[in-house]
């Protein structure tokens, strides 16, 4: 059931194909004004490849590495938070700037608000504990479990780290194996080592 129209008729009816960028910008501004952007996102470059940054009105809700497939991550946010997901770079400006400063070695602490709504229960407690580990310091998974109040839940603490929705800003890279090896990292073990080396240099 396709219908085709002579291109000249189509042009006369609706005009030529146009660049929607200016209209999109207006839409995003109006949507922000009316509080309709439940998830704003943008991509930024980093020394470790492109990062996807996403924030609710409450704070940064997701940082995704290139390897995670940004379209999949956005589909997940639409499902788990709200389908009102828009590329609205303005809201991500503060975290983008802080990440730049961090990667340049000029920032030791993130001040932007974080929204941990994607994480519940003990995992969330673990992530809240991670936020108290200072720049350049590391803990073992066992120490992280103890820091979160359940010393025997080492495996659960490790799982919380590997499912951290806001890596870098919530510094799961500061949790290393007790034998000194870096352990799993969503951005790759090399990135974890590089971040720790930068923080201790």
């Amino acid at each position, binding site marked *: 059931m396709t219908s085709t*129209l002579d291109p000249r008729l189509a042009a*006369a*009816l609706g005009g030529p194909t146009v660049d*929607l960028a200016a*209209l999109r910008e207006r839409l995003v501004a109006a949507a922000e004004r*009316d509080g309709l952007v439940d998830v704003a996102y943008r991509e930024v470059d980093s020394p470790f490849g492109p990062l996807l940054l996403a924030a609710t009105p409450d704070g940064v809700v997701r940082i995704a590495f290139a390897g995670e497939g940004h379209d999949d991550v*956005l589909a997940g946010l639409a499902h788990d938070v709200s389908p009102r*997901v828009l590329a609205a770079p303005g809201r991500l400006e503060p975290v983008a700037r802080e990440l730049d400063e961090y990667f340049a070695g000029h920032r030791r602490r993130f001040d932007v608000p974080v929204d941990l709504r994607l994480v519940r229960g003990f995992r969330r407690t673990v992530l809240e504990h991670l936020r108290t580990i200072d720049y350049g310091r590391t803990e073992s998974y066992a120490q992280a479990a103890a820091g979160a109040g359940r010393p025997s839940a080492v495996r659960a603490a490790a799982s919380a780290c590997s499912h951290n929705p806001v890596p870098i800003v919530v510094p799961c890279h500061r949790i290393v194996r007790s034998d000194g090896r870096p352990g799993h990292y969503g951005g790759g073990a090399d990135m974890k080592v590089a971040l720790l080396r930068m923080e201790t240099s």
Partner: protein
Amino acid sequence: MARPPFERVVADHGQVVLRVCRALLGPADADDAWSETFLAALRAYPELRPDSNVRGWLVTIAHRKAIDVLRRRARQPRPAGSLPDRPTRGAEDGAPTGLDGDLRAVVEALPPKQQAAVVYRYLADLPYDEVARLLGSSPAAARRAAADGVAALRAALPDRTSPGGPR
């Protein structure tokens, strides 16, 4: 099935909705109608049934917004001596004026129902039962209006737009 991120909806259907708004209103008011359409759609999006025809839903909203704009226009007649309602297309989007403008005039001269039927059927690619719902008529009447409208446009086409040929 989950709803895709709204950004996806804008990327997939933004162009068609703009064409519909331009066809119904002309370029001058189309941008506002487009913005209002997508803002209203964003507001209602979480309640949209996931299996809905998204383009049909957007065009329905655009249709209502276009009616709003036309009502506002009717209430606020332009003072005599003001600029014409629609500048030549070329002034706005860089396309050459002339033939395109002539055809545009034919589109505008169509009876409103024919014009809307052509837009919904051929620009928005909606099935006739959706077109009928938007027009408030039967599917048969919608089919007839679209056919009559497109016939009138085709009749206006050949001698006006044969490239390089004599008129």
